[in-house]
Protein backbone atom coordinates (compact mmCIF):
# COMPACT_ATOMS: atom_id res chain seq x y z
CA UNK A 1 0.00 0.00 0.00
CA UNK A 2 1.21 3.44 -0.88
CA UNK A 3 0.24 7.02 -0.22
CA UNK A 4 0.65 9.39 -3.14
CA UNK A 5 1.03 12.99 -2.06
CA UNK A 6 0.76 15.37 -5.03
CA UNK A 7 1.35 19.11 -4.75
CA UNK A 8 -0.30 20.71 -7.76
CA UNK A 9 -1.26 24.11 -9.10
CA UNK A 10 -4.62 25.34 -7.86
CA UNK A 11 -5.53 26.10 -11.47
CA UNK A 12 -4.86 22.47 -12.49
CA UNK A 13 -7.10 20.92 -9.85
CA UNK A 14 -10.09 20.25 -12.09
CA UNK A 15 -8.01 18.77 -14.87
CA UNK A 16 -6.23 16.42 -12.46
CA UNK A 17 -9.45 15.44 -10.70
CA UNK A 18 -11.17 14.59 -13.98
CA UNK A 19 -8.16 12.64 -15.27
CA UNK A 20 -8.04 10.61 -12.04
CA UNK A 21 -11.79 9.92 -12.30
CA UNK A 22 -11.21 8.45 -15.77
CA UNK A 23 -8.80 5.84 -14.35
CA UNK A 24 -11.18 5.01 -11.52
CA UNK A 25 -9.72 7.08 -8.69
CA UNK A 26 -12.75 8.72 -7.18
CA UNK A 27 -11.63 9.57 -3.69
CA UNK A 28 -8.75 11.51 -2.22
CA UNK A 29 -8.27 14.04 0.54
CA UNK A 30 -7.42 17.59 -0.35
CA UNK A 31 -5.83 20.51 1.44
CA UNK A 32 -4.63 24.01 0.75
CA UNK A 33 -0.89 24.35 1.15
CA UNK A 34 1.41 27.35 0.98
CA UNK A 35 4.86 27.17 -0.51
CA UNK A 36 7.43 29.50 0.93
CA UNK A 37 10.86 30.04 -0.50
CA UNK A 38 13.16 31.82 -2.87
CA UNK A 39 10.68 31.86 -5.70
CA UNK A 40 8.28 34.68 -4.82
CA UNK A 41 4.56 34.56 -5.26
CA UNK A 42 2.84 36.60 -7.92
CA UNK A 43 3.24 40.35 -7.55
CA UNK A 44 0.10 42.47 -7.74
CA UNK A 45 -0.48 46.20 -7.41
CA UNK A 46 -2.77 47.86 -4.87
CA UNK A 47 -3.11 51.63 -4.95
CA UNK A 48 0.17 51.92 -6.81
CA UNK A 49 2.25 49.93 -4.33
CA UNK A 50 3.55 46.41 -4.92
CA UNK A 51 1.53 43.74 -3.26
CA UNK A 52 3.74 40.68 -3.32
CA UNK A 53 2.35 37.50 -1.82
CA UNK A 54 5.16 36.06 0.28
CA UNK A 55 3.93 32.54 -0.32
CA UNK A 56 2.78 30.48 -3.25
CA UNK A 57 -0.65 28.83 -2.95
CA UNK A 58 -0.96 25.19 -4.06
CA UNK A 59 -3.21 22.22 -3.47
CA UNK A 60 -2.12 18.93 -1.95
CA UNK A 61 -3.97 15.72 -2.86
CA UNK A 62 -3.43 12.60 -0.76
CA UNK A 63 -4.36 9.31 -2.42
CA UNK A 64 -3.94 5.91 -0.71
CA UNK A 65 -3.79 3.04 -3.19
CA UNK A 66 -2.52 -0.46 -3.87
CA UNK A 67 1.07 -0.89 -5.02
CA UNK A 68 0.16 -1.86 -8.59
CA UNK A 69 -1.87 1.34 -9.29
CA UNK A 70 0.86 3.76 -8.14
CA UNK A 71 2.61 4.20 -11.48
CA UNK A 72 -0.64 4.83 -13.39
CA UNK A 73 -1.82 7.42 -10.88
CA UNK A 74 1.54 9.21 -10.82
CA UNK A 75 1.62 9.40 -14.61
CA UNK A 76 -1.97 10.65 -14.76
CA UNK A 77 -1.34 13.48 -12.28
CA UNK A 78 1.94 14.33 -13.99
CA UNK A 79 0.33 14.66 -17.40
CA UNK A 80 -2.83 16.45 -16.32
CA UNK A 81 -1.05 18.82 -13.95
CA UNK A 82 1.79 19.97 -16.21
CA UNK A 83 2.09 23.44 -17.77
CA UNK A 84 5.86 23.27 -18.33
CA UNK A 85 6.47 26.41 -16.25
CA UNK A 86 8.26 26.69 -12.93
CA UNK A 87 5.89 25.79 -10.13
CA UNK A 88 4.02 22.78 -11.54
CA UNK A 89 4.54 20.97 -8.24
CA UNK A 90 5.81 17.57 -7.09
CA UNK A 91 4.56 14.06 -6.39
CA UNK A 92 5.77 12.03 -3.40
CA UNK A 93 5.08 8.36 -2.73
CA UNK A 94 5.23 6.81 0.75
CA UNK A 95 4.78 3.34 2.16
CA UNK A 96 1.67 2.83 4.22
CA UNK A 97 1.96 0.42 7.15
CA UNK A 98 -1.58 -0.15 8.31
CA UNK A 99 -5.09 0.88 7.20
CA UNK A 100 -8.42 0.48 9.01
CA UNK A 101 -11.83 1.28 7.55
CA UNK A 102 -13.69 2.46 10.64
CA UNK A 103 -17.22 1.62 9.42
CA UNK A 104 -16.57 -2.08 8.68
CA UNK A 105 -13.44 -2.80 10.66
CA UNK A 106 -11.68 -4.04 7.49
CA UNK A 107 -7.92 -4.08 7.68
CA UNK A 108 -5.08 -3.14 5.33
CA UNK A 109 -5.54 -4.17 1.65
CA UNK A 110 -9.28 -4.66 2.08
CA UNK A 111 -9.63 -1.20 3.54
CA UNK A 112 -7.79 0.72 0.81
Amino acid at each position, binding site marked *: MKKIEAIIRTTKFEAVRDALARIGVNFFSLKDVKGYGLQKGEV*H*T*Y*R*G*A*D*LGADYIPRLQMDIVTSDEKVEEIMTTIEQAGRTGNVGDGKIFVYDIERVVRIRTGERDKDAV
Partner: protein
Amino acid sequence: MNEALFTANNLWILVATILVFIMHLGFASLESGFVRRKNTVNILFKNSMIIAIGLLTYFICGFNLMYPGETATGFFGFAGFGLSLPDGDAGGIAYADGAYAYYTDFIFQAMFAATGATIVSGAVAERIKLNSFLVFTIIFVALIYPIAGMWKWGGGWLDARGFYDFAGSTLVHSVGGWGALACIMVLGPRKGKYTSKGIQAIPGHSMPLATLGVFLLWFGWFGFNGGSVLSADPMGVSLVFVTTSLAAAGGAVGAFFTSYAMFKSHDLSMVLNGILGGLVGITAGADLMSPMASIIIGLIAGIIIPLSVVFFDRTLKLDDPVGATSVHLVCGIWGTLAVGIFGSMAGGGQFITQLIGVLAYGVFTFVLSYLLITVIKAAMGVRVTEEEEIKGLDLAEHDMEAYTM
Protein backbone atom coordinates in the same frame (compact mmCIF):
# COMPACT_ATOMS: atom_id res chain seq x y z
CA MET B 1 -42.87 85.16 -0.09
CA ASN B 2 -45.88 82.92 0.45
CA GLU B 3 -46.27 80.15 2.99
CA ALA B 4 -46.45 77.34 0.43
CA LEU B 5 -43.14 78.27 -1.14
CA PHE B 6 -41.55 78.64 2.30
CA THR B 7 -42.79 75.16 3.21
CA ALA B 8 -41.43 73.67 -0.02
CA ASN B 9 -38.07 75.41 0.38
CA ASN B 10 -37.73 74.43 4.01
CA LEU B 11 -38.70 70.83 3.27
CA TRP B 12 -36.05 70.53 0.60
CA ILE B 13 -33.33 71.76 2.97
CA LEU B 14 -34.52 69.21 5.54
CA VAL B 15 -34.39 66.43 2.93
CA ALA B 16 -30.90 67.61 2.02
CA THR B 17 -29.99 67.44 5.72
CA ILE B 18 -31.06 63.80 5.78
CA LEU B 19 -28.92 63.13 2.72
CA VAL B 20 -25.86 64.76 4.31
CA PHE B 21 -26.51 62.71 7.43
CA ILE B 22 -26.30 59.47 5.45
CA MET B 23 -22.87 60.55 4.16
CA HIS B 24 -21.59 59.68 7.63
CA LEU B 25 -22.62 56.09 7.02
CA GLY B 26 -20.89 56.38 3.66
CA PHE B 27 -17.66 57.51 5.31
CA ALA B 28 -17.93 54.81 7.99
CA SER B 29 -18.45 52.16 5.36
CA LEU B 30 -15.74 53.38 2.99
CA GLU B 31 -13.14 53.72 5.73
CA SER B 32 -14.01 50.28 7.15
CA GLY B 33 -13.54 48.71 3.75
CA PHE B 34 -10.13 50.30 3.24
CA VAL B 35 -8.65 49.15 6.56
CA ARG B 36 -7.69 45.65 7.68
CA ARG B 37 -10.35 43.63 9.45
CA LYS B 38 -8.52 43.85 12.76
CA ASN B 39 -9.16 47.62 12.83
CA THR B 40 -12.80 47.65 11.71
CA VAL B 41 -14.49 48.18 15.08
CA ASN B 42 -12.07 51.02 15.77
CA ILE B 43 -12.89 52.91 12.59
CA LEU B 44 -16.63 52.40 13.15
CA PHE B 45 -16.27 53.59 16.73
CA LYS B 46 -14.51 56.74 15.58
CA ASN B 47 -17.15 57.46 12.96
CA SER B 48 -19.95 56.94 15.48
CA MET B 49 -18.34 59.37 17.91
CA ILE B 50 -17.54 61.94 15.21
CA ILE B 51 -21.16 62.52 14.25
CA ALA B 52 -22.05 62.84 17.94
CA ILE B 53 -19.16 65.22 18.68
CA GLY B 54 -19.88 67.20 15.52
CA LEU B 55 -23.54 67.81 16.37
CA LEU B 56 -22.92 68.58 20.04
CA THR B 57 -20.03 70.98 19.51
CA TYR B 58 -21.90 72.69 16.68
CA PHE B 59 -24.78 73.20 19.10
CA ILE B 60 -22.54 74.45 21.91
CA CYS B 61 -20.43 76.93 19.95
CA GLY B 62 -19.82 75.94 16.31
CA PHE B 63 -22.94 77.39 14.74
CA ASN B 64 -22.49 80.77 16.39
CA LEU B 65 -18.78 80.85 15.56
CA MET B 66 -19.43 80.09 11.90
CA TYR B 67 -22.49 82.35 11.54
CA PRO B 68 -21.92 85.09 14.11
CA GLY B 69 -24.26 87.54 12.39
CA GLU B 70 -23.62 91.13 13.31
CA THR B 71 -20.91 90.21 15.84
CA ALA B 72 -18.71 89.27 12.86
CA THR B 73 -15.50 91.09 12.16
CA GLY B 74 -13.37 89.97 9.24
CA PHE B 75 -11.70 87.05 10.98
CA PHE B 76 -13.71 86.17 14.06
CA GLY B 77 -17.12 86.53 15.60
CA PHE B 78 -19.17 84.73 18.21
CA ALA B 79 -22.87 85.10 18.80
CA GLY B 80 -22.91 83.21 22.10
CA PHE B 81 -23.30 79.62 23.29
CA GLY B 82 -26.16 77.35 22.28
CA LEU B 83 -29.09 78.09 20.03
CA SER B 84 -31.47 81.01 20.38
CA LEU B 85 -34.54 80.86 18.19
CA PRO B 86 -35.47 84.34 17.01
CA ASP B 87 -39.00 85.36 18.03
CA GLY B 88 -41.96 84.73 15.76
CA ASP B 89 -41.49 85.04 12.02
CA ALA B 90 -37.87 86.05 12.52
CA GLY B 91 -37.10 82.38 13.26
CA GLY B 92 -39.40 81.15 10.49
CA ILE B 93 -40.47 82.63 7.18
CA ALA B 94 -38.54 85.86 7.69
CA TYR B 95 -35.32 84.16 8.86
CA ALA B 96 -33.84 83.61 5.41
CA ASP B 97 -36.35 85.36 3.23
CA GLY B 98 -38.60 82.29 3.07
CA ALA B 99 -35.84 79.85 2.14
CA TYR B 100 -35.59 77.93 5.41
CA ALA B 101 -36.30 78.25 9.13
CA TYR B 102 -33.77 78.92 11.88
CA TYR B 103 -33.62 75.34 13.16
CA THR B 104 -33.33 74.02 9.60
CA ASP B 105 -30.32 76.26 9.11
CA PHE B 106 -28.70 74.89 12.25
CA ILE B 107 -29.25 71.21 11.57
CA PHE B 108 -28.21 71.41 7.90
CA GLN B 109 -24.96 73.19 8.79
CA ALA B 110 -24.36 70.89 11.77
CA MET B 111 -24.41 67.84 9.49
CA PHE B 112 -21.70 69.48 7.39
CA ALA B 113 -19.51 70.24 10.39
CA ALA B 114 -18.84 66.65 11.34
CA THR B 115 -17.76 65.65 7.83
CA GLY B 116 -14.52 67.63 8.22
CA ALA B 117 -13.41 65.45 11.10
CA THR B 118 -14.52 62.28 9.37
CA ILE B 119 -12.01 63.04 6.63
CA VAL B 120 -9.22 62.99 9.22
CA SER B 121 -10.40 59.69 10.67
CA GLY B 122 -9.66 57.69 7.52
CA ALA B 123 -6.17 59.07 7.02
CA VAL B 124 -5.01 58.28 10.56
CA ALA B 125 -6.63 54.84 10.61
CA GLU B 126 -5.00 51.71 12.01
CA ARG B 127 -2.47 53.37 14.35
CA ILE B 128 -3.85 56.42 16.19
CA LYS B 129 -4.84 56.19 19.86
CA LEU B 130 -8.59 56.47 20.15
CA ASN B 131 -8.72 59.03 22.97
CA SER B 132 -6.09 61.22 21.35
CA PHE B 133 -8.09 61.20 18.13
CA LEU B 134 -11.28 62.13 19.96
CA VAL B 135 -9.59 65.09 21.68
CA PHE B 136 -8.31 66.24 18.29
CA THR B 137 -11.79 65.88 16.80
CA ILE B 138 -13.50 67.89 19.53
CA ILE B 139 -11.17 70.87 19.13
CA PHE B 140 -11.04 70.58 15.34
CA VAL B 141 -14.84 70.60 14.91
CA ALA B 142 -15.64 72.94 17.77
CA LEU B 143 -13.12 75.66 16.88
CA ILE B 144 -10.95 75.27 13.78
CA TYR B 145 -13.70 74.33 11.32
CA PRO B 146 -16.27 77.00 12.27
CA ILE B 147 -13.77 79.84 12.72
CA ALA B 148 -12.28 79.11 9.30
CA GLY B 149 -15.73 78.61 7.79
CA MET B 150 -16.87 82.01 9.00
CA TRP B 151 -14.31 83.70 6.73
CA LYS B 152 -16.48 82.80 3.76
CA TRP B 153 -19.91 81.49 4.72
CA GLY B 154 -20.26 83.66 7.82
CA GLY B 155 -19.59 86.86 5.89
CA GLY B 156 -15.93 87.24 6.85
CA TRP B 157 -12.93 88.72 5.04
CA LEU B 158 -12.74 86.17 2.21
CA ASP B 159 -16.42 86.64 1.43
CA ALA B 160 -15.79 90.37 1.24
CA ARG B 161 -12.93 89.74 -1.22
CA GLY B 162 -15.21 87.77 -3.55
CA PHE B 163 -13.83 84.31 -2.77
CA TYR B 164 -16.31 81.64 -3.90
CA ASP B 165 -16.92 78.20 -2.44
CA PHE B 166 -20.45 77.03 -3.14
CA ALA B 167 -20.70 73.94 -0.92
CA GLY B 168 -17.27 73.50 0.58
CA SER B 169 -14.48 72.18 -1.68
CA THR B 170 -12.27 74.32 0.53
CA LEU B 171 -14.36 75.07 3.61
CA VAL B 172 -15.21 71.44 4.30
CA HIS B 173 -13.03 69.14 2.20
CA SER B 174 -9.71 70.95 2.09
CA VAL B 175 -10.05 71.94 5.72
CA GLY B 176 -10.52 68.27 6.60
CA GLY B 177 -7.71 67.35 4.23
CA TRP B 178 -5.26 69.82 5.80
CA GLY B 179 -6.14 68.41 9.21
CA ALA B 180 -5.53 64.89 7.88
CA LEU B 181 -2.18 65.91 6.39
CA ALA B 182 -0.98 67.46 9.66
CA CYS B 183 -2.02 64.37 11.59
CA ILE B 184 -0.34 61.79 9.36
CA MET B 185 2.88 63.84 9.36
CA VAL B 186 3.03 63.78 13.16
CA LEU B 187 1.70 60.25 13.45
CA GLY B 188 3.98 58.45 11.01
CA PRO B 189 3.16 55.49 8.77
CA ARG B 190 1.61 52.19 9.75
CA LYS B 191 4.04 49.50 10.79
CA GLY B 192 5.02 47.46 7.76
CA LYS B 193 4.26 50.21 5.23
CA TYR B 194 7.81 51.41 4.59
CA THR B 195 10.28 48.56 5.03
CA SER B 196 13.78 47.65 3.90
CA LYS B 197 12.10 45.74 1.05
CA GLY B 198 10.41 48.93 -0.18
CA ILE B 199 6.90 50.34 0.01
CA GLN B 200 4.39 47.68 0.90
CA ALA B 201 0.73 47.69 -0.05
CA ILE B 202 -1.61 47.08 2.87
CA PRO B 203 -4.91 46.11 1.23
CA GLY B 204 -8.23 46.99 2.79
CA HIS B 205 -10.35 44.09 3.96
CA SER B 206 -13.64 44.70 2.17
CA MET B 207 -14.07 46.19 -1.27
CA PRO B 208 -17.88 45.65 -1.08
CA LEU B 209 -18.01 47.87 2.03
CA ALA B 210 -15.83 50.49 0.36
CA THR B 211 -18.04 50.49 -2.74
CA LEU B 212 -21.19 50.74 -0.67
CA GLY B 213 -19.63 53.69 1.15
CA VAL B 214 -18.80 55.55 -2.05
CA PHE B 215 -22.29 55.06 -3.45
CA LEU B 216 -23.78 56.32 -0.19
CA LEU B 217 -21.51 59.35 -0.36
CA TRP B 218 -22.57 60.07 -3.94
CA PHE B 219 -26.20 59.68 -2.82
CA GLY B 220 -25.60 62.07 0.07
CA TRP B 221 -23.86 64.57 -2.17
CA PHE B 222 -27.19 65.40 -3.81
CA GLY B 223 -28.04 66.93 -0.44
CA PHE B 224 -24.57 68.31 0.25
CA ASN B 225 -24.53 70.27 -3.01
CA GLY B 226 -28.26 70.36 -3.75
CA GLY B 227 -29.06 71.68 -0.28
CA SER B 228 -26.34 74.31 -0.60
CA VAL B 229 -28.55 76.12 -3.09
CA LEU B 230 -30.21 77.12 0.22
CA SER B 231 -33.70 77.02 -1.27
CA ALA B 232 -35.69 74.66 -3.47
CA ASP B 233 -35.16 76.92 -6.48
CA PRO B 234 -36.01 74.55 -9.36
CA MET B 235 -33.38 75.77 -11.83
CA GLY B 236 -30.65 76.00 -9.22
CA VAL B 237 -31.21 72.61 -7.59
CA SER B 238 -31.65 70.74 -10.85
CA LEU B 239 -28.46 72.22 -12.35
CA VAL B 240 -26.55 71.26 -9.21
CA PHE B 241 -27.85 67.67 -9.42
CA VAL B 242 -26.60 67.47 -13.01
CA THR B 243 -23.16 68.99 -12.41
CA THR B 244 -22.65 66.91 -9.26
CA SER B 245 -23.42 63.61 -10.95
CA LEU B 246 -21.55 64.36 -14.16
CA ALA B 247 -18.45 65.33 -12.20
CA ALA B 248 -18.61 62.09 -10.22
CA ALA B 249 -18.89 60.13 -13.47
CA GLY B 250 -15.99 62.10 -14.95
CA GLY B 251 -13.94 61.35 -11.85
CA ALA B 252 -14.51 57.62 -12.23
CA VAL B 253 -13.44 57.66 -15.88
CA GLY B 254 -10.40 59.85 -15.22
CA ALA B 255 -9.18 57.62 -12.41
CA PHE B 256 -9.87 54.47 -14.45
CA PHE B 257 -7.68 55.47 -17.39
CA THR B 258 -4.93 57.07 -15.33
CA SER B 259 -4.56 54.22 -12.87
CA TYR B 260 -4.67 51.67 -15.70
CA ALA B 261 -1.93 53.56 -17.54
CA MET B 262 0.17 53.77 -14.37
CA PHE B 263 -0.33 50.34 -12.82
CA LYS B 264 -1.67 48.16 -15.65
CA SER B 265 -4.52 47.02 -13.46
CA HIS B 266 -8.16 47.86 -12.91
CA ASP B 267 -7.80 49.17 -9.38
CA LEU B 268 -11.30 49.52 -7.88
CA SER B 269 -10.01 51.55 -4.95
CA MET B 270 -8.72 54.17 -7.41
CA VAL B 271 -12.02 54.39 -9.29
CA LEU B 272 -13.82 54.78 -5.95
CA ASN B 273 -11.42 57.57 -4.97
CA GLY B 274 -11.90 59.05 -8.45
CA ILE B 275 -15.67 59.28 -7.98
CA LEU B 276 -15.13 61.09 -4.67
CA GLY B 277 -12.45 63.30 -6.21
CA GLY B 278 -14.93 64.36 -8.92
CA LEU B 279 -17.56 65.10 -6.28
CA VAL B 280 -15.15 67.13 -4.14
CA GLY B 281 -13.91 68.93 -7.26
CA ILE B 282 -17.35 70.11 -8.39
CA THR B 283 -18.45 71.17 -4.91
CA ALA B 284 -16.91 74.67 -5.04
CA GLY B 285 -18.70 75.62 -8.23
CA ALA B 286 -21.57 73.18 -8.63
CA ASP B 287 -24.03 76.04 -9.25
CA LEU B 288 -21.75 77.92 -11.68
CA MET B 289 -20.75 75.24 -14.15
CA SER B 290 -22.24 74.09 -17.41
CA PRO B 291 -22.76 70.33 -17.67
CA MET B 292 -19.76 70.10 -20.01
CA ALA B 293 -17.52 72.06 -17.64
CA SER B 294 -18.56 69.81 -14.77
CA ILE B 295 -17.48 66.73 -16.75
CA ILE B 296 -14.07 68.30 -17.40
CA ILE B 297 -13.65 69.26 -13.73
CA GLY B 298 -14.57 65.73 -12.65
CA LEU B 299 -12.35 64.13 -15.28
CA ILE B 300 -9.33 66.18 -14.18
CA ALA B 301 -10.05 65.37 -10.54
CA GLY B 302 -10.09 61.68 -11.50
CA ILE B 303 -6.79 62.02 -13.34
CA ILE B 304 -5.28 63.76 -10.31
CA ILE B 305 -6.27 60.96 -7.91
CA PRO B 306 -3.79 58.17 -8.82
CA LEU B 307 -1.00 60.71 -9.38
CA SER B 308 -1.66 62.28 -6.00
CA VAL B 309 -1.96 58.94 -4.18
CA VAL B 310 1.42 57.86 -5.56
CA PHE B 311 2.92 61.27 -4.76
CA PHE B 312 1.90 61.05 -1.09
CA ASP B 313 2.79 57.36 -0.88
CA ARG B 314 6.17 57.27 -2.66
CA THR B 315 7.50 60.82 -2.79
CA LEU B 316 6.38 62.24 0.54
CA LYS B 317 6.26 58.83 2.26
CA LEU B 318 3.06 59.81 4.04
CA ASP B 319 0.82 56.86 4.78
CA ASP B 320 -2.86 57.55 4.08
CA PRO B 321 -4.80 54.25 4.02
CA VAL B 322 -7.95 55.66 2.42
CA GLY B 323 -6.54 58.40 0.17
CA ALA B 324 -8.22 61.18 2.15
CA THR B 325 -5.48 63.71 1.41
CA SER B 326 -5.76 63.09 -2.33
CA VAL B 327 -9.54 63.09 -2.44
CA HIS B 328 -10.37 65.90 -0.04
CA LEU B 329 -7.28 68.10 0.08
CA VAL B 330 -5.90 67.92 -3.45
CA CYS B 331 -9.25 67.68 -5.28
CA GLY B 332 -10.67 70.31 -2.91
CA ILE B 333 -7.93 72.70 -3.97
CA TRP B 334 -8.50 71.79 -7.62
CA GLY B 335 -12.24 72.40 -7.37
CA THR B 336 -11.74 75.75 -5.67
CA LEU B 337 -9.29 76.92 -8.33
CA ALA B 338 -11.58 75.59 -11.08
CA VAL B 339 -14.08 78.32 -10.17
CA GLY B 340 -11.54 80.77 -11.60
CA ILE B 341 -11.08 78.68 -14.77
CA PHE B 342 -14.55 77.40 -15.75
CA GLY B 343 -18.12 78.57 -15.38
CA SER B 344 -19.85 81.88 -14.95
CA MET B 345 -17.28 83.45 -12.57
CA ALA B 346 -14.14 82.42 -14.48
CA GLY B 347 -11.40 84.99 -14.93
CA GLY B 348 -7.86 85.90 -13.94
CA GLY B 349 -8.90 88.08 -11.02
CA GLN B 350 -11.24 85.41 -9.67
CA PHE B 351 -8.51 82.78 -10.03
CA ILE B 352 -6.16 84.89 -7.89
CA THR B 353 -8.92 85.37 -5.30
CA GLN B 354 -9.56 81.61 -5.25
CA LEU B 355 -5.83 81.02 -4.80
CA ILE B 356 -5.71 83.46 -1.88
CA GLY B 357 -8.60 81.57 -0.30
CA VAL B 358 -6.89 78.20 -0.79
CA LEU B 359 -3.66 79.50 0.76
CA ALA B 360 -5.40 81.24 3.66
CA TYR B 361 -7.33 78.11 4.57
CA GLY B 362 -4.25 75.99 4.08
CA VAL B 363 -2.01 78.01 6.37
CA PHE B 364 -4.63 78.50 9.08
CA THR B 365 -5.92 74.93 9.20
CA PHE B 366 -2.63 73.14 8.66
CA VAL B 367 -0.68 75.16 11.23
CA LEU B 368 -3.35 74.92 13.91
CA SER B 369 -3.93 71.21 13.27
CA TYR B 370 -0.20 70.53 13.37
CA LEU B 371 0.16 72.39 16.66
CA LEU B 372 -2.89 70.68 18.08
CA ILE B 373 -1.81 67.14 17.26
CA THR B 374 1.74 67.92 18.43
CA VAL B 375 0.46 69.13 21.81
CA ILE B 376 -1.77 66.05 22.08
CA LYS B 377 1.25 63.86 21.27
CA ALA B 378 3.26 65.47 24.05
CA ALA B 379 0.42 65.39 26.55
CA MET B 380 -1.13 61.97 26.03
CA GLY B 381 0.67 60.22 23.19
CA VAL B 382 -0.75 59.78 19.75
CA ARG B 383 0.12 56.25 18.65
CA VAL B 384 -0.83 52.88 19.99
CA THR B 385 2.08 50.63 20.95
CA GLU B 386 3.70 48.46 18.30
CA GLU B 387 2.25 45.37 19.94
CA GLU B 388 -1.26 46.85 19.90
CA GLU B 389 -0.84 47.85 16.27
CA ILE B 390 0.08 44.27 15.30
CA LYS B 391 -2.73 42.82 17.37
CA GLY B 392 -5.17 45.29 15.85
CA LEU B 393 -6.97 48.20 17.43
CA ASP B 394 -10.23 46.25 17.74
CA LEU B 395 -8.81 43.99 20.41
CA ALA B 396 -6.32 46.52 21.79
CA GLU B 397 -8.74 49.43 22.24
CA HIS B 398 -12.18 47.82 22.26
CA ASP B 399 -11.81 44.18 23.38
CA MET B 400 -14.02 43.39 20.45
CA GLU B 401 -13.82 41.95 16.97
CA ALA B 402 -15.83 43.07 13.95
CA TYR B 403 -16.28 39.54 12.65
CA THR B 404 -16.36 36.54 14.95
CA MET B 405 -16.28 33.93 12.20
